[in-house]
């Protein structure tokens, strides 16, 4: 009798699981709010767990670096001198850009406010690619904000709790980011497919990116700020008439420790009266 009941329990719970999957699929808000609530609950534990691991790995890093100091120094010195040239060029361009914007009476580009958060859980799930960070609504985060680190775009905030948030990595199956091929300014969408090399889809017909082309966010749709570094085109293959390009993101997924969440100034659709007012002001000038 006991084993029969146990087996029945398994079947019942299997059915419950299927129902939950269905509910998740249709995007039931109840499911998501429960999930966010639970994540918020366990965030302190996760943060506490990951701290010693980070400390230990930093220690090991230090050890490895000691064995490589001289050549690393040389490499870094060369890098600094080439970076200095880029810095100089960047400052020149920035000054030029500022002057041109003033001439065109364009709105100034301020540095967007940002929040830095630590990655507290990297589930490393082979089929879903997202990480948890230890900042939430209390830190000012909202759904949809871009997450970057020093190397480039990491992903996008999809769920926000009080003290935690989930960042969907740009390699995930569900990730779709509007991007630009920097050289030709062609628009496309970067679609993740759970591999390390997301694809460029919806390229204009007849456009072929070249290997080595830099990909940046386009800022279209108000999804992300424009100009965030995403990656580099690495391989091209043709699928009939269309060319499929794969992008290697700049970000090293094994080294996700701290992320910056960028607050995007556009907060959705501008109310009609505000837009009309701006139009009138422009005309008066």
């Amino acid at each position, binding site marked *: 009798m006991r084993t029969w009941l146990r087996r029945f329990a398994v079947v019942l*719970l299997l059915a419950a699981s299927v129902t939950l*999957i269905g509910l998740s699929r249709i995007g039931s808000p109840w499911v998501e709010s429960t999930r966010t609530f639970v994540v918020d609950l*366990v965030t302190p*534990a996760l943060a506490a*767990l990951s701290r010693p691991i980070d400390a230990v790995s930093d220690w090991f890093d230090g050890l490895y670096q000691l064995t490589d100091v001289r050549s690393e120094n040389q490499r870094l010195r060369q890098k600094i001198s080439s970076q200095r040239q880029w810095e100089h060029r960047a400052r020149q361009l920035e000054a030029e850009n500022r002057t041109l914007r003033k001439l065109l009476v364009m709105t100034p580009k301020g540095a967007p406010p940002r929040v830095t958060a630590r990655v507290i859980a*990297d*589930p490393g799930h*082979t089929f879903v690619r997202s990480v948890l960070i230890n900042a939430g609504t209390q830190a000012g985060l909202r759904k949809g904000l871009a997450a970057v680190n020093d190397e480039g775009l990491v992903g996008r905030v*999809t769920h926000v709790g009080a003290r935690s948030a989930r960042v*969907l990595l740009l390699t995930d199956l569900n990730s779709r980011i509007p991007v630009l091929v920097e050289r030709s300014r062609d628009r496309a969408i970067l679609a993740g497919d759970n591999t390390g090399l997301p694809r460029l889809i919806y390229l204009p017909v007849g456009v072929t990116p070249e290997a080595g082309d830099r990909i940046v966010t386009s800022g279209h749709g108000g999804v992300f700020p424009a100009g965030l570094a995403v990656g580099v085109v690495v391989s091209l293959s043709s699928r009939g008439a269309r060319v499929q390009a794969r992008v290697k993101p700049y970000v090293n997924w094994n080294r996700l420790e701290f992320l910056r969440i960028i607050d995007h100034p556009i907060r959705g659709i501008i109310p009609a009266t505000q837009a009309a007012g701006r139009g009138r002001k422009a005309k008066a000038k």
Partner: protein
Amino acid sequence: MRTLSLTQQLDHWARNLTPFAITVALVFLGVVPLPMPDFGAIAPALALISVYYWAIFRPDLLPAVAVFAVGLLEDVLDGGALGTRALVLLAVYGLVAVQRRRLIGRSFLALWGGFFLVGSLAIVVEWVILFTLHWQAINPVPALFQLFVTAALYPCLAWLLTRVHGAVLRQD
């Protein structure tokens, strides 16, 4: 039958909770970020080992409800559709429950082999769920690598669990 004192009852209760507590702890350990090359893709499914072990040796202490809860916790943490991991772990639990009589007296190698089979089932179930949800065939090779890594860790973790089993649970 003598009635147990409060401390004895608490002790009994705490011991019985051990398999569940260990499995939950392994879920947390599994999501802590480790900066190893491509770790994300091959992080071992430690909780699966624990579920397999307790399903064979003490299914009364890790009932289906507990497995369901562990699966839900994994889903909450890894961002997959809620219920995916629960379904996978329940399928594994169910299979082990059915085959338990065959597994219980066997050598360690047989159990290891059994785990490998069970792990393969887990991958298949998960792949099917994701295929049904997203209508896209996802490359299963990373999951296979993960299975190998997990299977490689099985002896070590199973040994630990046996120690815990002996120390904490056989005292009655």
